[in-house]
């Protein structure tokens, strides 16, 4: 790190105006609280089998391919991206509904990626999930009491006589009538059903809740109620959230930190103010430009909409180099040759792009070339040495690379 110069954050004005909000979002790092969940290079490849009697594996769907992030204790990380980008798979890997192909899932410092079902059993109490569809996530043949009480019976945590009082208490917590424990799910509305699902997830007092699109199946008016309920619960019970959604507005409301996924990889991860106001990755920018903006509409005129060409490539055979290059307006030669690392470019901001920059201010030369030891076309540069620190880490480091300054450096 000899050639790195000490630079100040070029967006100092920006960070000053947001410093108060930063403080809230930095709960995890700044507050001295550790990350409850640390995911490192998580991979999930689903085999694609040929038809016929002998079903050979002919390929793999690379649903999640090397994802790293942290969920701070008591915090919330949002995971956004379009359909099929691997965000739900990530959630199901963390809850260990799937066995990951590779990588680490450190929960409270313990790797749970390879644990057997038996050894996972005690951890099931700590990691629970809220499901997307309230119409299929509740067994139609069980009463609400049986559904919410099932975790207690499976884990044998309370004597059987105490189950019903606990169930009623939980129903009250999520805002349902505790007398309705003997009703069936079909007697409830979508929002009420989702509350039952939340009550079930809360039954064992989890430390981490994976919310897999918890509100996307609900009416907009109900969405707000459920999101607010989740926020109240987070505060009351000190639960950490991994909040998976495709609704950027909901994520913005709920999550101090947001990660954007594209085709099985995280392309940008930042605290919400930075991500929503100063996105650096062209995909994030395109995604955000698709969100209708009421304020813009009020003053007349619409924000420039970035239209992406083409479809998402197949995850069975993803593009070489940067996965977004086939649809990226900035793509150059280097993008096909070299995969951009998820580089930390701000205090709590990482982006995976050779040409990271704000809209209209993208650099013309790849900012990552020297770090990776390659020239501007992506060919190996014998004169340069790759920076060993340019490897993806789950959390945020104290030093980061200043891209806007035009040179790479680190701030101590």
């Amino acid at each position: 790190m000899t050639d790195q110069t000490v630079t100040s954050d070029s967006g100092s004005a920006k960070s000053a105006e947001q410093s108060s909000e930063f403080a809230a979002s930095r709960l995890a790092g700044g507050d001295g609280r550790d990350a409850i969940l640390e995911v490192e290079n998580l991979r999930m490849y689903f085999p694609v089998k040929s038809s016929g009697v002998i079903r050979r594996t002919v390929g793999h769907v690379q649903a999640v391919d090397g994802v790293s992030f942290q969920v701070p204790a008591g915090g919330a990380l949002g995971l956004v991206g379009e359909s099929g980008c691997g965000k739900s798979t990530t959630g199901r890997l963390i809850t260990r509904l799937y066995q990951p192909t590779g990588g680490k899932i450190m929960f409270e410092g313990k790797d749970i990626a390879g644990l057997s079902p038996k050894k996972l059993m005690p951890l099931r109490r700590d990691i629970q999930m809220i499901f997307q569809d309230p119409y299929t996530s509740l067994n139609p043949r069980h009463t609400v009491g049986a559904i919410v009480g099932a975790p207690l019976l499976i884990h044998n945590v309370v004597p059987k006589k105490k189950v019903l009082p606990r169930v009623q208490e939980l129903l009250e917590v999520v805002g349902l009538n505790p007398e309705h424990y003997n009703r069936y799910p079909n007697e409830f509305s979508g929002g009420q059903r989702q509350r039952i699902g939340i009550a079930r997830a809360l039954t064992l007092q989890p430390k981490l809740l994976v919310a897999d699109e918890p509100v996307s199946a609900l009416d907009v008016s109900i969405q707000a109620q459920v999101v607010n309920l989740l926020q109240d619960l987070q505060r009351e019970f000190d639960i950490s959230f991994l909040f998976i959604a495709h609704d950027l507005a909901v994520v913005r409301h709920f999550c101090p930190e947001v990660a954007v996924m594209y085709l099985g990889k995280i392309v940008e991860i930042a605290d919400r103010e930075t991500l929503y106001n100063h996105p650096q990755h062209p995909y994030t920018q395109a995604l955000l430009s698709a969100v209708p903006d009421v304020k813009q509409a009020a003053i007349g005129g619409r924000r420039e909409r970035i239209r992406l060409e083409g479809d998402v490539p197949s995850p069975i055979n993803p593009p070489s180099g940067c996965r977004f290059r086939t649809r990226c307006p900035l793509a150059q030669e280097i993008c096909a040759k070299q995969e951009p690392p998820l580089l930390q470019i701000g205090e709590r901001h990482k982006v995976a792009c050779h040409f990271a920059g704000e809209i209209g201010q993208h650099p013309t030369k790849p900012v990552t070339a020297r770090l990776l030891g390659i020239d501007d076309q992506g060919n190996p540069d014998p004169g340069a040495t790759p920076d060993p620190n340019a490897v993806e880490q789950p959390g945020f480091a104290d030093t980061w690379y200043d891209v806007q300054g035009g040179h790479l450096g680190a701030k101590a």
Partner: protein
Amino acid sequence: MTVPVTELESHVTAPPGEEPDDSGVQKVAGRSPTQLALARFRKDKLSMAAFCVVALYVATALVAPILVKTGVLDPLTLHQDLLDVNMGGIPKGSFGGISADHWLGVEPGTGRDVLSRLVYGITWSLFIALSATFVAMGIGTVLGIISGFSGGFTDSVIGRAIDLTLSFPSTMMLLALSGVAVAFMTGTLQVPAGDVANALYVILVLGFFGWPGIARIVRGQVLSIREREFVDAARLLGASRGRLYFKEILPNLWAPLLVYFTLMMPAFISAEAALSYLQVGVKPPTPTLGNILTDSINYSVADFVFFFTPAFLIMIIVVSFNLLGDGLRDALDPKTHR
């Protein structure tokens, strides 16, 4: 392995305490899917009639042994005096010897009371059909759930086992094995010889060759149920396989199972009759609908009443069970229309 949920389920019957109790106003009480289906079923007059007939048969089957014990029914006593020896043992009097003592006449050749034999025969026939249905459905349901839920290699193995069972020449096999198997049961397994061993053989054979159909239906249902999120939710809680199979999935299967049950029963009642004709199963003098019918075939012209009554009873019960099954299917799955 499973912690019973009955603790909670038992409260289902408890009256909901918070309902606004305006007398005179119809309470909008919550209804389970079962209650909704029952309400639909009750509206279907034909199915209700079929249900009543089936209920009548079941009631007859239940009281017949008591009536036999108390002497009201007497299926075994021979009444040689009521037979016309000159006519080759045909009952005296018209219509097979119908009289105040013998409402449906007496059996040609032996003079046993036909009504008593038919009533007691219903008991045996329903008992055999019901037991065989339970055996078939038990095997079929468990294997179907495992096959559908596990998928992969297990699924293939069970699938091939189904193919194998279906392609087996079962009728030939059960005829050929009849003597050996009954001897094995009475000898090695210490099963009481006679009616019990014969009935058990029929039950096991029918049950064993009857499971593939139900296994396929269950597997198909499980394939769709296992993709629903409540199964994931249970797995997430660390539910055991037993709990997943029998607490989460099985309750969602009971509609097709019930329908299949009502379609399997008549098939087995007919099968028992057919096997009786082939001299397999419970043998006279113990009556079953099947062996009474077999006996009566020789008298189809000479004593029409004796020939007609067992055939008629079998027809009625088979048709009723089938109609009941159709009605249940319509009631349980409101999306299908006739």
